[in-house]
Protein backbone atom coordinates (compact mmCIF):
# COMPACT_ATOMS: atom_id res chain seq x y z
CA UNK A 1 0.00 0.00 0.00
CA UNK A 2 1.16 3.53 -0.77
CA UNK A 3 0.53 4.56 2.84
CA UNK A 4 3.07 1.96 4.06
CA UNK A 5 5.97 3.46 2.11
CA UNK A 6 8.79 5.34 3.77
CA UNK A 7 9.56 8.86 2.60
CA UNK A 8 12.78 7.60 0.99
CA UNK A 9 10.84 4.82 -0.76
CA UNK A 10 8.03 7.11 -1.92
CA UNK A 11 10.57 9.55 -3.32
CA UNK A 12 12.08 6.78 -5.46
CA UNK A 13 8.61 5.63 -6.56
CA UNK A 14 7.59 9.15 -7.57
CA UNK A 15 10.77 9.68 -9.57
CA UNK A 16 10.39 6.30 -11.28
CA UNK A 17 6.76 7.25 -12.15
CA UNK A 18 5.42 4.14 -10.39
CA UNK A 19 2.64 6.33 -9.00
CA UNK A 20 1.83 10.03 -9.01
CA UNK A 21 1.98 12.56 -6.21
CA UNK A 22 -1.82 12.88 -6.50
CA UNK A 23 -2.15 9.07 -6.00
CA UNK A 24 0.06 9.29 -2.93
CA UNK A 25 -1.78 12.26 -1.43
CA UNK A 26 -5.22 10.77 -2.17
CA UNK A 27 -4.23 7.51 -0.46
CA UNK A 28 -3.41 9.49 2.68
CA UNK A 29 -6.51 11.68 2.47
CA UNK A 30 -8.65 8.54 2.22
CA UNK A 31 -6.86 7.06 5.23
CA UNK A 32 -7.54 10.28 7.17
CA UNK A 33 -11.21 10.19 6.15
CA UNK A 34 -11.49 6.60 7.39
CA UNK A 35 -9.53 6.84 10.63
CA UNK A 36 -9.37 10.45 11.80
CA UNK A 37 -12.95 10.47 13.17
CA UNK A 38 -11.69 7.86 15.65
CA UNK A 39 -8.06 8.91 16.23
CA UNK A 40 -8.61 12.71 16.18
CA UNK A 41 -5.00 13.14 15.09
CA UNK A 42 -5.87 16.12 12.86
CA UNK A 43 -7.64 19.27 14.03
CA UNK A 44 -7.89 20.59 10.46
CA UNK A 45 -7.64 18.60 7.21
CA UNK A 46 -6.73 20.83 4.25
CA UNK A 47 -8.03 18.49 1.56
CA UNK A 48 -8.31 20.91 -1.38
CA UNK A 49 -4.98 22.58 -0.69
CA UNK A 50 -3.24 19.20 -0.41
CA UNK A 51 -4.60 18.07 -3.78
CA UNK A 52 -3.45 21.35 -5.37
CA UNK A 53 0.02 20.91 -3.90
CA UNK A 54 0.14 17.29 -5.13
CA UNK A 55 -0.81 18.42 -8.65
CA UNK A 56 1.96 21.01 -8.54
CA UNK A 57 4.34 18.26 -7.39
CA UNK A 58 3.37 16.07 -10.34
CA UNK A 59 4.02 19.00 -12.68
CA UNK A 60 7.44 19.55 -11.08
CA UNK A 61 8.27 15.84 -11.38
CA UNK A 62 7.22 15.84 -15.04
CA UNK A 63 9.44 18.88 -15.64
CA UNK A 64 12.38 17.10 -14.01
CA UNK A 65 12.41 19.55 -11.08
CA UNK A 66 12.20 17.07 -8.20
CA UNK A 67 13.29 18.50 -4.84
CA UNK A 68 13.97 16.80 -1.50
CA UNK A 69 10.28 16.38 -0.61
CA UNK A 70 8.39 16.83 -3.87
CA UNK A 71 4.99 15.16 -3.49
CA UNK A 72 5.56 13.84 0.05
CA UNK A 73 2.38 14.23 2.19
CA UNK A 74 3.03 15.49 5.71
CA UNK A 75 1.08 16.48 8.81
CA UNK A 76 1.94 19.83 10.40
CA UNK A 77 1.64 20.25 14.15
CA UNK A 78 -1.00 22.90 14.73
CA UNK A 79 1.58 25.08 16.46
CA UNK A 80 3.20 26.13 13.15
CA UNK A 81 1.55 29.13 11.54
CA UNK A 82 0.36 28.23 8.05
CA UNK A 83 -0.75 31.04 5.78
CA UNK A 84 -4.50 30.95 5.23
CA UNK A 85 -4.98 27.75 7.25
CA UNK A 86 -6.37 28.04 10.79
CA UNK A 87 -3.71 27.57 13.50
CA UNK A 88 -5.13 26.84 16.95
CA UNK A 89 -2.16 25.69 19.12
CA UNK A 90 -4.75 23.29 20.55
CA UNK A 91 -6.30 26.21 22.41
CA UNK A 92 -9.77 27.71 22.42
CA UNK A 93 -8.18 31.15 22.55
CA UNK A 94 -6.70 30.70 19.05
CA UNK A 95 -9.85 29.01 17.68
CA UNK A 96 -10.59 31.80 15.18
CA UNK A 97 -6.93 32.49 14.24
CA UNK A 98 -5.97 32.27 10.56
CA UNK A 99 -2.32 33.34 10.16
CA UNK A 100 -1.55 35.77 7.35
CA UNK A 101 2.00 34.35 7.17
CA UNK A 102 3.87 31.04 6.95
CA UNK A 103 6.34 29.84 9.60
CA UNK A 104 9.94 29.50 8.40
CA UNK A 105 10.04 25.73 8.96
CA UNK A 106 6.84 25.08 6.99
CA UNK A 107 7.96 27.53 4.29
CA UNK A 108 11.19 25.50 3.99
CA UNK A 109 9.18 22.28 3.60
CA UNK A 110 6.97 23.89 0.94
CA UNK A 111 10.06 25.20 -0.86
CA UNK A 112 11.23 21.58 -1.08
CA UNK A 113 7.92 20.42 -2.57
CA UNK A 114 6.10 18.90 0.43
CA UNK A 115 2.31 18.44 0.49
CA UNK A 116 0.50 19.48 3.69
CA UNK A 117 -2.42 17.20 4.59
CA UNK A 118 -3.53 19.29 7.53
CA UNK A 119 -2.85 20.46 11.06
CA UNK A 120 -2.10 17.87 13.73
CA UNK A 121 -3.62 17.83 17.20
CA UNK A 122 -1.46 18.67 20.25
CA UNK A 123 -1.63 19.53 23.91
CA UNK A 124 -2.82 23.09 24.40
CA UNK A 125 0.12 25.44 23.65
CA UNK A 126 2.28 22.26 23.66
CA UNK A 127 1.85 22.00 27.45
CA UNK A 128 1.32 18.34 28.22
CA UNK A 129 2.58 14.79 27.82
CA UNK A 130 -0.61 13.01 26.77
CA UNK A 131 -2.50 15.23 24.30
CA UNK A 132 -5.27 15.30 26.93
CA UNK A 133 -5.09 19.08 27.34
CA UNK A 134 -6.11 19.88 23.74
CA UNK A 135 -9.24 22.01 23.48
CA UNK A 136 -10.05 19.95 20.36
CA UNK A 137 -10.30 16.64 22.19
CA UNK A 138 -7.84 13.86 23.01
CA UNK A 139 -5.98 11.78 20.41
CA UNK A 140 -6.21 8.00 20.45
CA UNK A 141 -2.92 6.10 20.24
CA UNK A 142 -3.23 3.61 17.35
CA UNK A 143 -1.43 0.98 19.45
CA UNK A 144 -3.42 -1.38 21.72
CA UNK A 145 -2.50 -3.43 24.78
CA UNK A 146 -2.51 -7.16 24.02
CA UNK A 147 -4.32 -8.02 27.24
CA UNK A 148 -6.84 -5.22 27.11
CA UNK A 149 -7.39 -4.00 23.53
CA UNK A 150 -10.40 -1.92 24.59
CA UNK A 151 -8.40 0.54 26.68
CA UNK A 152 -7.89 3.82 24.81
CA UNK A 153 -4.26 4.85 25.21
CA UNK A 154 -2.74 8.30 24.88
CA UNK A 155 -0.23 9.01 22.07
CA UNK A 156 1.96 11.04 24.41
CA UNK A 157 2.44 14.74 23.97
CA UNK A 158 2.59 17.40 23.16
CA UNK A 159 3.10 16.35 19.50
CA UNK A 160 0.50 13.57 20.01
CA UNK A 161 -1.47 14.14 16.80
CA UNK A 162 1.73 14.21 14.73
CA UNK A 163 2.97 10.93 16.22
CA UNK A 164 -0.41 9.15 16.00
CA UNK A 165 -0.91 10.28 12.38
CA UNK A 166 2.49 8.95 11.32
CA UNK A 167 2.12 5.67 13.27
CA UNK A 168 -1.35 5.01 11.79
CA UNK A 169 -0.09 5.83 8.27
CA UNK A 170 -2.26 8.93 7.88
CA UNK A 171 0.91 10.88 6.98
CA UNK A 172 4.44 9.89 5.91
CA UNK A 173 6.03 12.24 8.38
CA UNK A 174 5.12 15.24 10.49
CA UNK A 175 6.54 18.32 12.12
CA UNK A 176 6.65 18.46 15.88
CA UNK A 177 8.08 20.79 18.46
CA UNK A 178 9.93 19.79 21.59
CA UNK A 179 10.23 21.95 24.70
CA UNK A 180 10.79 19.22 27.30
CA UNK A 181 10.20 16.00 25.34
CA UNK A 182 7.23 16.80 23.09
CA UNK A 183 8.75 15.10 20.03
CA UNK A 184 10.64 12.25 21.69
CA UNK A 185 8.06 11.00 24.22
CA UNK A 186 5.15 10.73 21.71
CA UNK A 187 7.52 9.10 19.20
CA UNK A 188 8.35 6.51 21.87
CA UNK A 189 4.65 5.98 22.78
CA UNK A 190 3.65 5.53 19.11
CA UNK A 191 6.53 3.33 17.92
CA UNK A 192 8.08 5.84 15.52
CA UNK A 193 11.28 7.92 15.29
CA UNK A 194 11.60 11.58 16.22
CA UNK A 195 14.43 14.03 16.74
CA UNK A 196 14.69 17.21 18.76
CA UNK A 197 17.59 18.98 17.05
CA UNK A 198 20.08 21.25 18.79
CA UNK A 199 18.45 24.45 20.02
CA UNK A 200 18.91 26.92 17.15
CA UNK A 201 19.06 24.32 14.36
CA UNK A 202 15.50 25.05 13.17
CA UNK A 203 13.94 28.50 13.17
CA UNK A 204 11.23 29.21 15.72
CA UNK A 205 9.81 32.05 13.61
CA UNK A 206 6.09 31.53 13.13
CA UNK A 207 5.89 28.76 15.71
CA UNK A 208 3.46 29.64 18.51
CA UNK A 209 5.79 30.27 21.45
CA UNK A 210 5.65 28.28 24.70
CA UNK A 211 9.09 28.57 26.37
CA UNK A 212 11.39 30.39 24.00
CA UNK A 213 14.75 29.27 25.47
CA UNK A 214 13.67 25.61 25.07
CA UNK A 215 11.25 25.38 22.10
CA UNK A 216 12.73 23.60 19.09
CA UNK A 217 10.98 22.25 15.97
CA UNK A 218 11.87 18.81 14.65
CA UNK A 219 10.45 15.92 12.61
CA UNK A 220 8.76 12.61 13.40
CA UNK A 221 8.66 9.78 10.83
CA UNK A 222 8.64 5.99 10.72
CA UNK A 223 12.39 5.62 10.08
CA UNK A 224 15.55 7.37 11.21
CA UNK A 225 16.47 8.10 7.58
CA UNK A 226 13.07 9.73 6.95
CA UNK A 227 13.66 12.01 9.95
CA UNK A 228 17.06 12.89 8.46
CA UNK A 229 15.43 13.80 5.13
CA UNK A 230 12.80 15.97 6.84
CA UNK A 231 15.28 17.72 9.14
CA UNK A 232 17.48 18.50 6.15
CA UNK A 233 14.61 20.57 4.75
CA UNK A 234 13.36 22.08 8.02
CA UNK A 235 16.74 23.27 9.32
CA UNK A 236 18.76 26.31 8.36
CA UNK A 237 19.65 29.82 9.42
CA UNK A 238 16.82 32.33 9.60
CA UNK A 239 17.55 36.00 10.26
CA UNK A 240 13.97 36.34 11.58
CA UNK A 241 14.88 34.21 14.63
CA UNK A 242 17.81 35.75 16.50
CA UNK A 243 18.53 32.41 18.21
CA UNK A 244 18.70 30.57 14.89
CA UNK A 245 22.21 29.24 14.31
CA UNK A 246 24.11 30.59 11.34
CA UNK A 247 25.66 27.24 10.45
CA UNK A 248 25.60 25.06 7.36
CA UNK A 249 23.07 22.19 7.31
CA UNK A 250 25.01 18.94 6.92
CA UNK A 251 23.84 15.92 4.90
CA UNK A 252 21.91 14.17 7.68
CA UNK A 253 20.81 11.35 5.40
CA UNK A 254 24.41 10.43 4.61
CA UNK A 255 25.18 10.43 8.36
CA UNK A 256 22.64 7.61 8.84
CA UNK A 257 25.02 5.27 6.98
CA UNK A 258 28.16 6.10 8.97
CA UNK A 259 27.91 3.27 11.49
CA UNK A 260 29.16 3.42 15.07
CA UNK A 261 32.54 1.69 14.77
CA UNK A 262 34.97 3.46 17.08
CA UNK A 263 32.36 5.76 18.63
CA UNK A 264 32.32 6.12 22.40
CA UNK A 265 28.79 5.84 23.81
CA UNK A 266 28.12 7.02 27.36
CA UNK A 267 25.61 5.28 29.63
CA UNK A 268 24.56 7.68 32.41
CA UNK A 269 23.58 5.76 35.51
CA UNK A 270 21.13 8.45 36.68
CA UNK A 271 18.45 7.69 34.05
CA UNK A 272 16.35 5.51 36.35
CA UNK A 273 13.12 6.27 38.21
CA UNK A 274 11.46 4.49 41.12
CA UNK A 275 8.83 2.13 39.78
CA UNK A 276 10.23 2.20 36.23
CA UNK A 277 9.06 -0.99 34.46
CA UNK A 278 11.59 -3.82 34.20
CA UNK A 279 11.00 -3.92 30.42
CA UNK A 280 12.56 -0.48 29.99
CA UNK A 281 15.71 -1.31 31.95
CA UNK A 282 16.03 -4.54 29.94
CA UNK A 283 15.59 -2.75 26.60
CA UNK A 284 18.20 -0.19 27.63
CA UNK A 285 20.73 -2.95 28.37
CA UNK A 286 19.79 -4.56 25.04
CA UNK A 287 20.53 -1.25 23.31
CA UNK A 288 23.93 -1.14 24.99
CA UNK A 289 24.65 -4.66 23.71
CA UNK A 290 23.52 -3.77 20.18
CA UNK A 291 25.85 -0.78 20.00
CA UNK A 292 28.75 -2.77 21.44
CA UNK A 293 28.22 -5.49 18.82
CA UNK A 294 28.12 -2.83 16.10
CA UNK A 295 31.59 -1.70 17.13
CA UNK A 296 30.99 1.12 19.63
CA UNK A 297 32.88 1.45 22.87
CA UNK A 298 30.58 1.66 25.91
CA UNK A 299 31.57 4.06 28.71
CA UNK A 300 29.85 4.53 32.08
CA UNK A 301 29.26 8.23 32.76
CA UNK A 302 27.53 10.28 35.42
CA UNK A 303 25.21 13.25 34.93
CA UNK A 304 24.69 14.06 38.62
CA UNK A 305 22.08 16.81 38.19
CA UNK A 306 19.68 14.73 36.07
CA UNK A 307 17.03 14.50 38.78
CA UNK A 308 16.89 18.28 39.07
CA UNK A 309 15.99 18.68 35.39
CA UNK A 310 12.25 18.35 36.00
CA UNK A 311 11.84 20.83 38.87
CA UNK A 312 14.15 23.28 37.06
CA UNK A 313 12.01 22.94 33.95
CA UNK A 314 8.84 23.60 35.95
CA UNK A 315 10.21 27.00 36.93
CA UNK A 316 11.89 28.04 33.67
CA UNK A 317 9.19 26.87 31.23
CA UNK A 318 6.18 28.35 33.09
CA UNK A 319 8.11 31.60 33.64
CA UNK A 320 8.73 31.96 29.91
CA UNK A 321 5.20 30.79 29.12
CA UNK A 322 3.60 33.36 31.41
CA UNK A 323 5.47 36.03 29.49
CA UNK A 324 4.85 34.58 26.00
CA UNK A 325 1.15 34.02 26.63
CA UNK A 326 0.61 37.60 27.78
CA UNK A 327 -0.14 38.43 24.14
CA UNK A 328 -3.49 36.60 24.22
CA UNK A 329 -5.59 39.53 25.31
CA UNK A 330 -8.70 39.28 23.14
CA UNK A 331 -7.84 42.53 21.36
CA UNK A 332 -5.56 41.92 18.40
CA UNK A 333 -6.34 38.34 17.41
CA UNK A 334 -7.92 35.20 18.79
CA UNK A 335 -11.10 34.72 20.79
CA UNK A 336 -12.57 37.50 22.95
CA UNK A 337 -14.96 37.39 25.88
CA UNK A 338 -16.44 40.82 26.51
CA UNK A 339 -16.31 42.41 29.95
CA UNK A 340 -17.36 45.50 31.83
CA UNK A 341 -14.11 47.31 31.13
CA UNK A 342 -10.77 46.59 29.44
CA UNK A 343 -9.27 44.79 32.41
CA UNK A 344 -12.38 42.67 32.83
CA UNK A 345 -12.26 41.87 29.09
CA UNK A 346 -8.64 40.64 29.48
CA UNK A 347 -9.44 38.55 32.55
CA UNK A 348 -12.58 36.96 31.13
CA UNK A 349 -10.99 36.33 27.73
CA UNK A 350 -8.04 34.51 29.33
CA UNK A 351 -10.18 32.59 31.87
CA UNK A 352 -12.45 31.40 29.05
CA UNK A 353 -9.72 30.86 26.47
CA UNK A 354 -7.08 28.94 28.46
CA UNK A 355 -7.56 25.37 29.70
CA UNK A 356 -6.69 24.19 33.22
CA UNK A 357 -3.06 23.15 32.55
CA UNK A 358 -2.20 26.35 30.68
CA UNK A 359 -3.80 28.44 33.41
CA UNK A 360 -1.85 26.49 36.05
CA UNK A 361 1.48 27.10 34.29
CA UNK A 362 0.81 30.78 33.63
CA UNK A 363 0.04 31.24 37.34
CA UNK A 364 3.17 29.34 38.45
CA UNK A 365 5.23 31.38 36.00
CA UNK A 366 3.73 34.64 37.18
CA UNK A 367 4.47 33.68 40.79
CA UNK A 368 8.12 32.65 40.29
CA UNK A 369 8.79 35.89 38.39
CA UNK A 370 6.98 38.12 40.89
CA UNK A 371 8.75 40.57 43.18
CA UNK A 372 10.34 38.86 46.18
CA UNK A 373 10.37 35.38 44.64
CA UNK A 374 12.38 35.97 41.48
CA UNK A 375 15.78 35.20 43.06
CA UNK A 376 14.57 32.26 45.14
CA UNK A 377 12.93 30.50 42.24
CA UNK A 378 13.84 31.82 38.81
CA UNK A 379 17.51 32.77 39.32
CA UNK A 380 18.12 29.61 41.33
CA UNK A 381 16.58 27.51 38.54
CA UNK A 382 18.81 29.19 35.97
CA UNK A 383 21.85 28.34 38.09
CA UNK A 384 20.79 24.70 38.32
CA UNK A 385 20.25 24.79 34.56
CA UNK A 386 23.89 25.83 34.19
CA UNK A 387 24.90 22.78 36.25
CA UNK A 388 22.78 20.49 34.06
CA UNK A 389 24.53 21.86 30.97
CA UNK A 390 27.90 21.37 32.68
CA UNK A 391 27.03 17.69 33.30
CA UNK A 392 26.58 17.21 29.55
CA UNK A 393 29.64 19.26 28.63
CA UNK A 394 31.79 17.18 31.01
CA UNK A 395 30.37 13.89 29.68
CA UNK A 396 30.95 14.91 26.06
CA UNK A 397 34.66 15.33 26.74
CA UNK A 398 34.76 11.56 27.19
CA UNK A 399 32.03 10.28 24.86
CA UNK A 400 30.52 11.02 21.43
CA UNK A 401 26.89 10.36 22.38
CA UNK A 402 24.71 9.08 25.22
CA UNK A 403 22.19 6.23 25.22
CA UNK A 404 19.21 6.40 27.63
CA UNK A 405 15.54 5.35 27.65
CA UNK A 406 13.20 7.93 26.07
CA UNK A 407 10.45 7.73 28.68
CA UNK A 408 9.98 6.00 32.04
CA UNK A 409 6.83 4.19 30.81
CA UNK A 410 4.98 2.94 27.73
CA UNK A 411 1.77 4.66 26.61
CA UNK A 412 -0.80 4.90 29.40
CA UNK A 413 -4.58 5.03 29.18
CA UNK A 414 -6.62 8.20 28.76
CA UNK A 415 -7.49 9.40 32.24
CA UNK A 416 -4.42 7.88 33.90
CA UNK A 417 -1.91 10.25 35.55
CA UNK A 418 -4.56 12.97 35.49
CA UNK A 419 -5.17 13.24 39.25
CA UNK A 420 -1.80 14.82 40.05
CA UNK A 421 0.06 17.22 37.72
CA UNK A 422 3.46 16.02 39.02
CA UNK A 423 2.71 12.40 38.03
CA UNK A 424 2.13 13.63 34.48
CA UNK A 425 5.28 15.77 34.56
CA UNK A 426 7.42 12.71 35.49
CA UNK A 427 6.86 11.38 31.96
CA UNK A 428 9.44 13.87 30.76
CA UNK A 429 12.13 13.05 33.33
CA UNK A 430 14.45 11.52 30.68
CA UNK A 431 13.85 14.07 27.91
CA UNK A 432 13.99 17.34 29.87
CA UNK A 433 17.73 17.34 30.71
CA UNK A 434 18.72 17.47 27.00
CA UNK A 435 16.16 20.25 26.50
CA UNK A 436 17.62 22.26 29.37
CA UNK A 437 21.10 21.85 27.86
CA UNK A 438 19.93 22.55 24.30
CA UNK A 439 21.57 19.39 22.93
CA UNK A 440 20.00 17.11 20.28
CA UNK A 441 18.10 13.96 21.25
CA UNK A 442 16.43 11.31 19.11
CA UNK A 443 13.95 8.58 20.05
CA UNK A 444 14.17 5.33 18.10
CA UNK A 445 11.55 2.55 18.33
CA UNK A 446 13.53 -0.33 19.82
CA UNK A 447 11.15 -2.93 21.24
CA UNK A 448 7.81 -3.84 22.80
CA UNK A 449 6.86 -4.21 26.44
CA UNK A 450 5.00 -7.24 27.84
CA UNK A 451 1.71 -5.63 26.77
CA UNK A 452 2.88 -5.31 23.16
CA UNK A 453 3.35 -1.54 23.39
CA UNK A 454 6.32 0.21 21.76
CA UNK A 455 9.27 1.53 23.76
CA UNK A 456 11.89 3.96 22.51
CA UNK A 457 15.56 4.43 23.23
CA UNK A 458 17.03 7.91 23.16
CA UNK A 459 20.34 8.98 21.67
CA UNK A 460 21.66 12.32 22.96
CA UNK A 461 24.46 14.11 21.12
CA UNK A 462 26.77 17.10 21.30
CA UNK A 463 25.45 20.52 20.25
CA UNK A 464 25.12 20.69 16.45
CA UNK A 465 26.30 17.11 16.07
CA UNK A 466 23.00 15.63 14.88
CA UNK A 467 25.07 13.61 12.41
CA UNK A 468 26.42 11.37 15.18
CA UNK A 469 22.92 11.17 16.67
CA UNK A 470 21.61 9.94 13.30
CA UNK A 471 24.51 7.48 12.92
CA UNK A 472 23.90 5.92 16.35
CA UNK A 473 20.11 5.98 15.92
CA UNK A 474 20.32 4.25 12.55
CA UNK A 475 22.58 1.56 14.03
CA UNK A 476 20.08 0.98 16.85
CA UNK A 477 17.20 0.88 14.36
CA UNK A 478 19.01 -1.70 12.28
CA UNK A 479 19.87 -3.89 15.26
CA UNK A 480 16.36 -3.64 16.74
CA UNK A 481 14.64 -4.52 13.48
CA UNK A 482 11.44 -3.04 14.87
CA UNK A 483 8.66 -4.32 12.59
CA UNK A 484 5.60 -4.43 14.88
CA UNK A 485 2.55 -2.56 13.61
CA UNK A 486 -0.12 -0.60 15.48
CA UNK A 487 -3.59 -2.19 15.67
CA UNK A 488 -5.22 0.82 14.03
CA UNK A 489 -3.65 1.84 10.73
CA UNK A 490 -4.53 2.56 7.14
CA UNK A 491 -5.34 -0.71 5.38
CA UNK A 492 -4.95 -2.61 8.68
Amino acid sequence: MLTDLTIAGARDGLRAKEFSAVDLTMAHLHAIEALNPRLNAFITVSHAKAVDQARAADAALAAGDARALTGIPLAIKDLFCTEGVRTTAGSKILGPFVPPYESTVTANLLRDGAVFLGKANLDEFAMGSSNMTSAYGPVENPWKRRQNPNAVLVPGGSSGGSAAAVAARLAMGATGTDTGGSIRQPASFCGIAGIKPTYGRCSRWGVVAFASSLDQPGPVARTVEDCAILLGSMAGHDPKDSTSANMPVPDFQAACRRGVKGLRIGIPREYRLDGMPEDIERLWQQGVAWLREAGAEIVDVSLPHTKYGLPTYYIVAPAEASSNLARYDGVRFGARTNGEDLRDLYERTRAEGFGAEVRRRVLIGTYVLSAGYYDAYYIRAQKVRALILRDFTDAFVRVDALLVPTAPSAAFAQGENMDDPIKMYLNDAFTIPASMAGVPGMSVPAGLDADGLPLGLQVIGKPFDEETVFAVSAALEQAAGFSALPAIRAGG
Partner: protein
Amino acid sequence: MSLDHATVRRIASLARIRVEEHEVEPLCQELNGILGWIEQLNEVDVTGVAPLTGAANMAAVLRPDVVTDGGYPEKVLANAPERIGDFYVVPKVVE
Protein backbone atom coordinates in the same frame (compact mmCIF):
# COMPACT_ATOMS: atom_id res chain seq x y z
CA MET B 1 7.01 29.09 50.91
CA SER B 2 3.34 28.30 50.72
CA LEU B 3 0.65 30.20 48.88
CA ASP B 4 -2.46 31.45 50.67
CA HIS B 5 -5.74 32.51 49.09
CA ALA B 6 -4.76 36.16 48.93
CA THR B 7 -1.56 35.32 47.05
CA VAL B 8 -3.42 33.13 44.56
CA ARG B 9 -5.84 36.00 43.91
CA ARG B 10 -2.93 38.43 43.54
CA ILE B 11 -1.01 36.34 40.99
CA ALA B 12 -4.22 35.60 39.06
CA SER B 13 -4.76 39.32 38.91
CA LEU B 14 -1.16 39.93 37.78
CA ALA B 15 -1.66 37.27 35.09
CA ARG B 16 -5.00 38.83 34.09
CA ILE B 17 -6.87 35.57 34.52
CA ARG B 18 -10.27 35.74 36.20
CA VAL B 19 -10.55 33.21 39.02
CA GLU B 20 -13.96 32.47 40.53
CA GLU B 21 -14.25 32.23 44.32
CA HIS B 22 -14.85 28.45 44.28
CA GLU B 23 -11.68 27.95 42.20
CA VAL B 24 -9.31 29.60 44.68
CA GLU B 25 -8.94 26.71 47.14
CA PRO B 26 -8.37 23.94 44.52
CA LEU B 27 -5.88 26.19 42.68
CA CYS B 28 -4.14 26.95 45.96
CA GLN B 29 -3.67 23.22 46.61
CA GLU B 30 -2.46 22.46 43.08
CA LEU B 31 0.04 25.30 43.02
CA ASN B 32 1.33 24.46 46.50
CA GLY B 33 1.77 20.84 45.42
CA ILE B 34 3.93 21.91 42.47
CA LEU B 35 5.89 24.53 44.43
CA GLY B 36 6.50 22.06 47.27
CA TRP B 37 7.95 19.59 44.79
CA ILE B 38 10.12 22.32 43.24
CA GLU B 39 11.63 23.05 46.68
CA GLN B 40 14.02 20.12 46.16
CA LEU B 41 16.17 22.57 44.15
CA ASN B 42 17.22 24.05 47.49
CA GLU B 43 19.44 21.03 48.13
CA VAL B 44 21.64 21.93 45.12
CA ASP B 45 24.80 23.89 45.91
CA VAL B 46 24.79 26.74 43.41
CA THR B 47 27.55 28.81 45.03
CA GLY B 48 29.52 30.66 42.40
CA VAL B 49 27.40 29.37 39.50
CA ALA B 50 26.36 31.95 36.91
CA PRO B 51 22.69 31.69 35.84
CA LEU B 52 22.15 30.21 32.37
CA THR B 53 19.56 32.24 30.50
CA GLY B 54 19.28 30.07 27.44
CA ALA B 55 20.62 27.09 25.59
CA ALA B 56 21.84 29.10 22.64
CA ASN B 57 25.41 29.87 23.56
CA MET B 58 25.67 32.75 21.16
CA ALA B 59 26.13 36.48 21.05
CA ALA B 60 23.19 38.81 20.45
CA VAL B 61 22.62 39.33 16.76
CA LEU B 62 22.49 42.83 15.38
CA ARG B 63 21.05 44.04 12.11
CA PRO B 64 20.93 47.47 10.47
CA ASP B 65 18.24 49.63 12.08
CA VAL B 66 16.02 49.94 9.04
CA VAL B 67 12.37 49.15 8.34
CA THR B 68 12.22 45.66 6.85
CA ASP B 69 8.55 44.83 7.13
CA GLY B 70 5.10 46.35 7.37
CA GLY B 71 2.71 48.48 5.40
CA TYR B 72 -0.16 45.99 5.31
CA PRO B 73 -2.77 47.01 7.90
CA GLU B 74 -5.36 44.66 6.36
CA LYS B 75 -3.19 41.63 7.11
CA VAL B 76 -2.38 42.87 10.60
CA LEU B 77 -6.03 43.56 11.43
CA ALA B 78 -7.48 40.52 9.66
CA ASN B 79 -7.74 38.56 12.92
CA ALA B 80 -9.05 41.38 15.12
CA PRO B 81 -12.09 40.34 17.17
CA GLU B 82 -13.48 43.85 16.68
CA ARG B 83 -12.24 46.75 14.55
CA ILE B 84 -13.26 50.08 13.09
CA GLY B 85 -11.25 51.04 10.03
CA ASP B 86 -7.57 50.54 10.82
CA PHE B 87 -8.15 50.46 14.59
CA TYR B 88 -8.76 47.75 17.18
CA VAL B 89 -11.85 48.33 19.30
CA VAL B 90 -11.74 47.93 23.09
CA PRO B 91 -14.14 49.02 25.87
CA LYS B 92 -13.86 52.69 26.76
CA VAL B 93 -10.86 53.32 29.07
CA VAL B 94 -11.27 57.08 29.74
CA GLU B 95 -14.40 58.86 30.89
